[in-house]
């Protein structure tokens, strides 16, 4: 594990006029971690990244890197490299000059620049394109060029803002894996912004989930998947995300409509809740929540059965061999252990 690249954000507030983009963000990232900032559009991920880079100033709060307060340090002095969503390559320079630029700016010796550029280009496999201009590269090659420019000077912090969003689906999957390997081999703390939960789940060591300018949960992909901290997170994570149904609990009983489930633990006084159930945790059986099949989506090796249970829509993921038809009346069963419960009012996990 690398020793540098520890990040700490404390109470970051960012306002744009009367819009508050961030309402007090606290975050700690360990050295060498691949850390994802995940959230829907407009939730403040880019803003957080830009504050970390020093491209924007926070209205309140402090930014620490490796124990030093860098809140007021210029972006160039923070020793961070960033890959922008648009790549921001310099169009009038060759790939070689693009990659060499950060080294030239700090006066590295010519011979050292040359070997560093070639090494970085080889790492991202664009060493045969060094003489071209960015305009003569494909989207994927441009993205690699931007990566090479970022890794060439071995920064202590590597910031990526949706670096894969301009690539087609297949290339995105491939690059995702490569990016992960690259980060492992470089052992640089990496902060990765994405709105694609699947991307974050597969690539990150840990992640922070943003909602409306706040971090609502921090954890490993497994933790976030297993125990979403709120209804919002539950509705965001997973493909498709979990089903959310209105319910009511009293002591150790859960009522969903007329259906009753024994929870096996006492949750106290009677109140309204939101029930979360993963599509993959559901199965059709002789007993369970009564529902009617609306539509069946074929996903290759599985099927998604979309049904109506009372007022709510429920998605159930089943084996492709399972035989269901539109309009069938079924009963949806699940283990009590698979139930996620959230307070109706606050949305917090129970």
């Amino acid at each position, binding site marked *: 594990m690398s020793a540098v690249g520890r990040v700490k954000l404390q109470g970051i507030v960012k306002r744009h006029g009367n819009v508050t983009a961030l309402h007090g963000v606290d975050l700690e990232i360990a050295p060498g971690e691949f850390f994802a900032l995940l959230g829907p559009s407009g939730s403040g991920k880019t803003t957080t990244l830009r504050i970390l880079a020093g491209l924007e100033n926070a209205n309140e709060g402090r930014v620490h890197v490796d124990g030093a307060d860098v809140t007021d340090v210029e972006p*160039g002095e923070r020793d961070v490299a960033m890959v922008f969503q648009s790549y921001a*390559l310099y*169009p009038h320079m060759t790939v070689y000059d693009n990659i060499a630029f*950060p080294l030239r700016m700090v006066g590295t010796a010519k011979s050292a620049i040359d070997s560093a550029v070639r090494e970085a280009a080889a790492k991202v496999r664009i060493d045969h394109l060094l003489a071209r201009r960015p305009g003569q590269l494909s989207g994927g090659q441009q993205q690699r060029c931007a990566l090479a*420019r970022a890794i060439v*000077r071995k920064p202590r912090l590597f910031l990526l803002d949706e670096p894969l969003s301009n690539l087609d689906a297949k290339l995105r999957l491939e690059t995702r894996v490569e990016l992960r390997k690259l980060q492992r081999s470089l052992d640089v703390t990496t902060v990765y912004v994405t709105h694609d939960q699947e991307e974050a789940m597969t690539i990150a060591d840990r992640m922070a989930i943003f909602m409306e300018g706040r971090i609502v949960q921090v954890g490993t992909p497994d933790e976030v998947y297993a125990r979403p901290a709120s209804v919002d997170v539950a509705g965001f994570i997973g493909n498709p995300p979990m089903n959310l149904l209105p319910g009511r609990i009293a002591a150790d009983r859960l009522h969903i409509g007329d259906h009753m489930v024994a929870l096996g633990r006492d949750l106290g006084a009677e109140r309204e809740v939101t029930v979360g159930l993963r599509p993959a945790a559901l199965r059709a059986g002789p007993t369970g929540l009564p529902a009617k099949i609306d539509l069946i989506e074929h996903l290759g090796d599985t099927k998604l059965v979309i049904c109506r249970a009372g007022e709510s829509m429920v998605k159930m993921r089943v084996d492709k061999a399972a035989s269901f038809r539109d309009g069938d009346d079924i009963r949806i069963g699940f283990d009590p252990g698979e139930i996620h419960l959230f307070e109706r009012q606050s949305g917090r996990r129970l």
Partner: protein
Amino acid sequence: MSRRALRALLLLAGASVLLAVWAFPILWGLLTSLKTERDVLAYPPKLIFEPTLANYREVLFGSASILPNLWSSLVVTGITTILTMLLAVPAAYALARLDLPGKRSGGFYVLATQMLPPVGLIIPYFLVLQRVGWLDTYQGMIAIYLTFSLPFAIWLMVSYLEDVPREMEEAALLDRAGRIRTLLYVILPQVRGGIAVTTIFVFLNAWNEFLFAVVLGGNRVRTVNVAMFNFISVEQTLWARLAAAAMIAMAPVIILGLLAQRHIVKGLTVGAVKGGGRR
């Protein structure tokens, strides 16, 4: 005849008429400049005559040579252009990028100065220059020329600079280039075309300027546009020489125009297509 061919023919005819209207005075001037004063006054006008370069010889090297005036024009225009560009590029960069207070109203002021009729300014300018003793001096002329060329150049450059993606500049800042080197190595190379176009327009505006030159200049600083009027006097007008001088004064304009044609057309349409002209 097919409709397409007809259309092409009509377009060609239209274009020829426009070209003729535009080119006629210049061709007429060119012919006149090659005639003797006697041929000029012949009626009906002679289309076939014995061309002579005497007029050119006379206006360049004769008693009323315009060479000193060409020099004056060149000095005033050249220095105005250089100063304008040196000041306009950083100013435009600041306006395009930094969050300066009063940026909007400042930008409007810049534009508004372009709309004032110059006649309205000439008396105040005259009085100011007279007070500081700069009438009929290069510094006086250049100072006044800057008042119209600078806003124009800033306004034009802002639109070019705003087209450079902000992220590119931020990338350079993160790469430790600093503001100055970011401007020099990353931003300016991308607005080369814009700088060329602006420079040419500024040069042409200054070179063609007449009103301020007449009123604020004098015996020491007399630009070629003003000097041409020496060929018009109460007793007689030396049309052929006037035409020759006009041809000479127009030469830089036409040469620059031809050289920069590609740039200008590209420059005028920049931003029309997103991402156009980025390479």
